[in-house]
């Protein structure tokens, strides 16, 4: 009897296991997610990347659906994935042919250009003015230009600050304590003196404050250029006349930025900083751990770091760090093709059966104040309280700890433009004006709208990427001697087809300019 039970059990177990394995292979039978139901409501499948996935997401989406059902007859099947996972999962879902209507894309996650090249996204150039007219009119033409591939638009970009502005954020309380006048700083050379003072004074006070971090991002800020390939590290860039740099490359439309005098100078400065101990001993590893860096910055153990700034950022940082924060700009904002791509884009699948509805929905995200506020700040009375007509308070008058807030994405640019919505009161009142000012000061690059087709030189790019990964970070963080390493770096770049890449980019840029 006992034996028999055992045998039955084992057969049952084997059967269950086999069934389990087979079940994994079948197609999901139930929800046919692409259909509209009887009462004419269309369900749109939306894959979104945002950090973190808020606890009350379902509640908010339910509210959103109530609104959009009446407004445009749409319900959202919302699939939200945290940024680090989205980056890994979404490309696989697309490659595997999973059905979706809308997905988040950029050049840092689920690469926009790459998937446009793979025919994954729908060409919406013609449909935009018809189904998302408000959004189409609201976003400046220059921004639309950046998402064009061969003159066609494949996604709706998040319109926020135009371009990027490199600079240094610093602990202004410490600066005051040490008697440093940051207004004197305009270049990296000037900053050396500041770092000297920080090292000297902090040592005298018995603390070893690290002078500056974030050098992995600092090189393009020291000598801004236009990244023509969509990747600022690939050696094929153009000079921007307004910055008045790269004199030794004059006459070349496209050149290798690593061969320039600017690069040598920058690396020398970084090397001298590292040798003087301003970078904390191990800059490459220190830079890669941003959580640790933020912690050190908040605790006054790190004086400053390089960032790409946006309006309102400094105010936000002084709120979160517990001490004063200042910003020194190293350049005027630069607006180029990659600036929008490095933000966010909502694209529609080339297999979508509801392109028009999807566009109408994206239009709401960008222009409807109720939708815009709901998707960022959550439900009024539960996740925020209204302050006046244009602001919200995510602490609900101080009664709600931001850490306990079940739904709060600050200004949530990943959902679309943050302009047509209510801002949190931690931002300055004139935040939209600040953005306007910033955008007006932005230098628009000559080749804005040019998108590089990498196909003919993919082999070279593959090899070059490896070479750059080998030399770039160590040189740019001052870990190795530039006099010794830059010539080797250039040698390897040449041997792996840097010239082929430059030639190809030059040919494509010239064609682009001619067709303008």
């Amino acid at each position, binding site marked *: 009897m006992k034996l028999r039970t055992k045998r039955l059990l084992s057969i049952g177990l084997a059967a269950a296991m086999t069934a389990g394995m087979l079940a994994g292979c079948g197609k999901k039978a139930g929800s046919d997610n692409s259909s509209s139901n009887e009462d004419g409501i269309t369900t749109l499948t939306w894959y979104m990347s945002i950090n973190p996935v808020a606890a009350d997401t379902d509640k908010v989406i339910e509210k959103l659906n109530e609104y959009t059902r009446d407004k445009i007859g749409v319900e959202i099947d919302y699939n939200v994935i945290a940024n680090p996972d989205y980056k890994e999962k979404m490309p696989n879902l697309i490659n595997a042919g999973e059905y979706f209507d809308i997905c988040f894309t950029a050049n840092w996650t689920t690469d926009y250009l790459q998937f446009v090249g*793979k*025919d*994954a996204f729908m060409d919406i150039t013609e449909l935009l003015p018809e189904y998302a007219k408000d959004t189409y009119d609201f976003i400046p033409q220059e921004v639309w230009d950046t998402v064009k591939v061969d003159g066609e638009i494949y996604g709706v970009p998040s319109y926020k600050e135009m371009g990027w502005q490199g600079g240094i954020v610093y602990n202004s309380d410490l600066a005051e304590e040490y008697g440093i006048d940051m207004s004197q700083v305009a270049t990296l050379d000037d900053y050396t003196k500041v770092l000297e003072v920080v090292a000297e004074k902090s040592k005298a006070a018995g603390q070893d404050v690290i002078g500056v971090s974030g050098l992995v991002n600092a090189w393009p800020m020291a000598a801004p250029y236009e990244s023509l390939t969509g990747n600022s590290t690939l050696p094929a860039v153009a000079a921007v006349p307004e910055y008045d740099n790269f004199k030794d490359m004059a006459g070349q439309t496209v050149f290798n930025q690593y061969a320039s005098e600017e690069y040598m100078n920058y690396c020398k400065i970084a090397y001298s900083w590292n040798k003087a101990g301003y970078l904390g001993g191990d800059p490459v590893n220190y830079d890669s751990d941003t959580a640790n860096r933020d912690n050190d910055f908040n605790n006054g153990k790190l004086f400053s770091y390089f960032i790409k700034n946006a309006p309102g950022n400094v105010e936000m940082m002084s709120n979160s760090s517990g001490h004063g924060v200042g910003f020194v700009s190293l350049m005027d904002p630069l607006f180029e093709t990659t600036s929008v791509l490095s933000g966010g884009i909502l694209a529609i699948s080339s297999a979508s059966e509801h392109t028009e509805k999807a566009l109408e929905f994206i239009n709401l995200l960008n222009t409807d104040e109720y939708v815009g506020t709901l998707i960022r700040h959550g439900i009024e009375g539960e996740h925020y309280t209204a302050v006046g007509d244009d602001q919200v308070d995510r602490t609900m008058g101080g009664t709600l700890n931001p850490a306990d807030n079940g739904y709060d994405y600050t200004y949530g640019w990943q959902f679309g433009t943050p302009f047509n919505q209510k801002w949190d009161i931690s931002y300055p009142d004139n935040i939209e004006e600040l953005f306007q000012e910033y955008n007006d000061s932005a230098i628009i690059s000559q080749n804005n709208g040019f998108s590089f087709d990498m196909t003919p030189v993919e082999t070279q790019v593959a090899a070059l990427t490896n*070479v750059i990964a080998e030399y770039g970070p160590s040189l740019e963080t001052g870990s190795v001697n530039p006099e010794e390493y830059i010539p080797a770096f250039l040698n390897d770049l040449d041997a792996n087809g840097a010239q082929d890449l430059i030639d190809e980019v030059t040919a494509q840029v010239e064609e682009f300019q001619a067709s303008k």
Partner: protein
Amino acid sequence: MKTVKTNPSVVKKKKKGFWYVFKKNLPLTIMAAPGLIVMILFRYLPMSGLLLAFKRFSVRGGIFGSEWIGFKNFDFLFKTTDAWIITRNTLMYNGLFILLDLVMAVAMAIGLNELLKKRRAKIYQTIFMAPYFLSWVVVSFMAFSLFSVDDGLFNHLLAYFGFEGVNWYADPGKWPFILTFFQIWKTIGYSTVMYLSSLTGIPNDYYEAAVIDGATKWQQIKNITLPCLKSMMIVLTILAIGKIFYADFGLFFQLPRDSGPLYDVTQVIDTYVYRALKETGNVGMASAASLYQSVVGFVLVVGTNLVVRKIDPDSALF
């Protein structure tokens, strides 16, 4: 493998039909079925994806509809100045690992087996086995706590004894040793257990007979233990050689913390492919790389087996 001997009278009878054979072997077939099904689903069906190695992948076209481009996807593996470095590193490291793993695991297995106190042997075995279950990411942080320039244990020790600190992550000369040490440290326990299990299968009579004949411990090991382990050693080595063109990504990417100055000694085919394709995300080129690895692995397994069969037909895998 040899077929099971059947009764000669059965063989002499006229050939039985498929259904007869099927029915006769039904219990065996059922036992094999789940494994076979899984193998077909996860090993053979996906092979159609190999077509991608010769295509320019497009999402709309899918695996079958995409455009053919011949061998262009393979170019990036060879048209680089690193081609020699990645091939050398992959083969040399893996060759070294196979050799060291074989020698040290067999030595440790014999040592553990000779321990008279079995309880203690079990404890040692567990200790050796433990690193096998750690992820390379965890190991890389453990190593970082040893090698970190400003906070590492080694640099603190060096400073204590009055020496200058070493920038471990920028000094390629030391990494072949570091990599080899961690690899062996991590995998040795697992291989030891494999050999230990076949050691327990050696009948005690052999040793008793040897002791009566006055054989020393060393003679026992040389003449009984090692010959009995031979087939296990050959099987594990042939399998390892099949993987000689696959480098352990975790070991070569995580442990050196992706440090550029170390690429000359840490760049292997897997890390190269990862770095090359994370920008372009080219599915075709990724397929090409893994097809290349598989083909080389296949050729090596068949080749090694051929050599083994020439030397000692009984030990060959197939």
